[in-house]
């Protein structure tokens, strides 16, 4: 056999065929996109171009350009009062995706359990398994898609190593207030567990201030803080993110990173520097726009009787299609074929979420409006008999 047992055991995403169907169709209004519909702000793109003109085409240090690490360090200090040393506690990664993979590979011993509130982003489970760990899913459906300290406590045992938090959450948009995070932190500290906190959507929190997990008192030493530029600065294709954490963990992660990745593209790193230095205004503008779309789409979905919890952040709504009597894949396929509107079936984010679809509102208002009209038609034509 050519393929390793471990990889062969990995489940390919069950909705791959659906994705191929969407990609093969033309003139689809897609609410299935997991990235901003804005282009990277011009001054950031320009900084990338300029760096190429100036001949910055080499490797950087493994940890990433010092200038970028310093800028990140200053930014976190100014914005959240969060202090990370640019020399030892920050690593530049190929998006949060790499940071996440490194985190797991760095901390997991065979058989360690990793807690994952679900629904969750697609890579958490498979990457945990690849790293030799056991993903333990905590279904948050009945708690408004939020992990509660009580639920968390129930799942912890001797083999538990860490909790993965992602807030605002992809696919539900749900986030946590400082108080709610405090409750989770208490449990983690009590059991001496690590928190891998994926806060890529942190800047896109609409109704309250985002609280990085590491800012909670006593949490920093046990937190791996993951963030990046993809979502807030509309830089998905640049592939640049960063990890902050205790220096022993960062040093260990850097060992893997130096052999697998070497370093992130220097062009992207230079553009990311510019983003942090001058991009705040663009972020705020985009955030206001997403917030308006959120109100618009939630109102529309409610009118269609597709129940959803109003998201606190990111640009997703996880809507219930239970009343239609269709399972999510069926719903998504029919909606695509009959009305040319694409959404992501809920099961992509966990087996239990057959009654849900993820709708992305990172799309123009005209698109959202048209999509809602088409969905209305769709629901009329597919009324439950």
């Amino acid at each position: 056999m050519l393929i390793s047992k471990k990889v062969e055991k990995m489940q390919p995403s069950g909705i791959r065929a659906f994705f191929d169907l969407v990609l093969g169709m033309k003139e689809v209004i897609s609410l299935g996109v997991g990235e901003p519909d804005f282009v990277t702000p011009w001054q950031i793109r320009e900084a990338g171009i300029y760096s190429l003109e100036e001949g910055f085409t080499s490797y950087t240090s493994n940890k990433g350009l010092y200038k970028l690490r310093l800028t990140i360090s200053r930014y976190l200090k100014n914005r959240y009062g969060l202090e990370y040393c640019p020399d030892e506690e920050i690593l530049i990664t190929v998006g949060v995706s790499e940071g996440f993979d490194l985190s797991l590979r760095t901390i997991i011993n065979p058989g360690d359990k990793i807690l994952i509130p679900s629904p969750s982003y697609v890579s958490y489970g498979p990457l945990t398994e690849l790293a030799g760990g056991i993903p333990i899913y905590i279904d948050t459906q009945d708690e408004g898609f939020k992990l509660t300290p009580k639920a968390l406590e129930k799942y912890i045992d001797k083999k538990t190593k860490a909790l993965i938090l992602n807030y605002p959450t992809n696919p539900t948009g749900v986030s946590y207030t400082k108080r709610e995070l405090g409750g989770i932190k208490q449990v983690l500290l009590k059991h001496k567990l690590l928190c891998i906190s994926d806060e890529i959507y942190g800047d896109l929190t609409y109704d309250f201030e985002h609280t990085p997990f590491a800012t909670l008192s006593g949490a920093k030493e046990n937190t791996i803080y993951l963030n990046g530029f993809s979502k807030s600065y509309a830089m998905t294709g640049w592939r640049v993110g960063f990890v902050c954490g205790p220096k022993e963990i960062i040093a260990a992660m850097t060992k893997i990173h130096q052999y697998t990745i070497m370093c992130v593209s220097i062009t992207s790193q230079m553009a990311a520097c510019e983003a942090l230095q001058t991009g705040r205004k663009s972020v705020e503008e985009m955030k206001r726009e997403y917030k308006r779309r959120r109100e618009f789409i939630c109102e529309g979905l409610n009118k269609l009787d597709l129940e959803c919890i109003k998201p606190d952040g990111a640009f997703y709504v996880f809507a219930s299609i239970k009343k239609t009597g269709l399972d999510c894949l069926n719903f998504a396929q029919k909606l695509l074929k009959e009305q040319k509107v694409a959404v992501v079936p809920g099961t992509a984010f966990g087996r239990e979420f057959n009654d849900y679809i993820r709708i992305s509102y990172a799309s123009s208002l005209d698109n959202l409006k048209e999509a809602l009209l088409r969905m209305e038609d769709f629901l009329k034509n597919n009324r439950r008999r």
Partner: protein
Amino acid sequence: MDEILEILEKNGRAGAEDIAKMLKKKPKDIKEAIKKYEKEGVILKYKAVINKDLIKDTDSSVRALIEVNITPQKDVGFDKVAERIYSFPEVSSCYLVSGTYDLLLIVEGKDLHTVSRFIAEKLAPLENVKGTITHFLLKKYKEDGVILKHKEENKRIAISY
């Protein structure tokens, strides 16, 4: 700036109903706010941004930027002279500026001849106009924040996590 204005500045056709949904307010309140802005002159008018390069016959296919030096008048300064100048329908924009000249005009006409004639016969002979320098526009790239290009195709892949 009020978010209502931010929305309308980008899309003058956004309806009160949609704006209300976006801002989670009552349509009635939005309508009233817009009416108030219109009354106060904050919102002056609604218009379409047209790419005239794509239209064959138009009365404004030639545009010129004109620097004008004028003599200010007692009591009213530049305003009175400016008014005499901007009242010509050929003048589409008129600004008082600092620097080596006083007024900057944008003048439109259907051809070079029309614009030149306006300058020679109407503008230059005005009593308080000391001199003019005309720059004919060769190509428009961006106007009022709008890049004059065909809509770009969507570069995102249609579905992703």
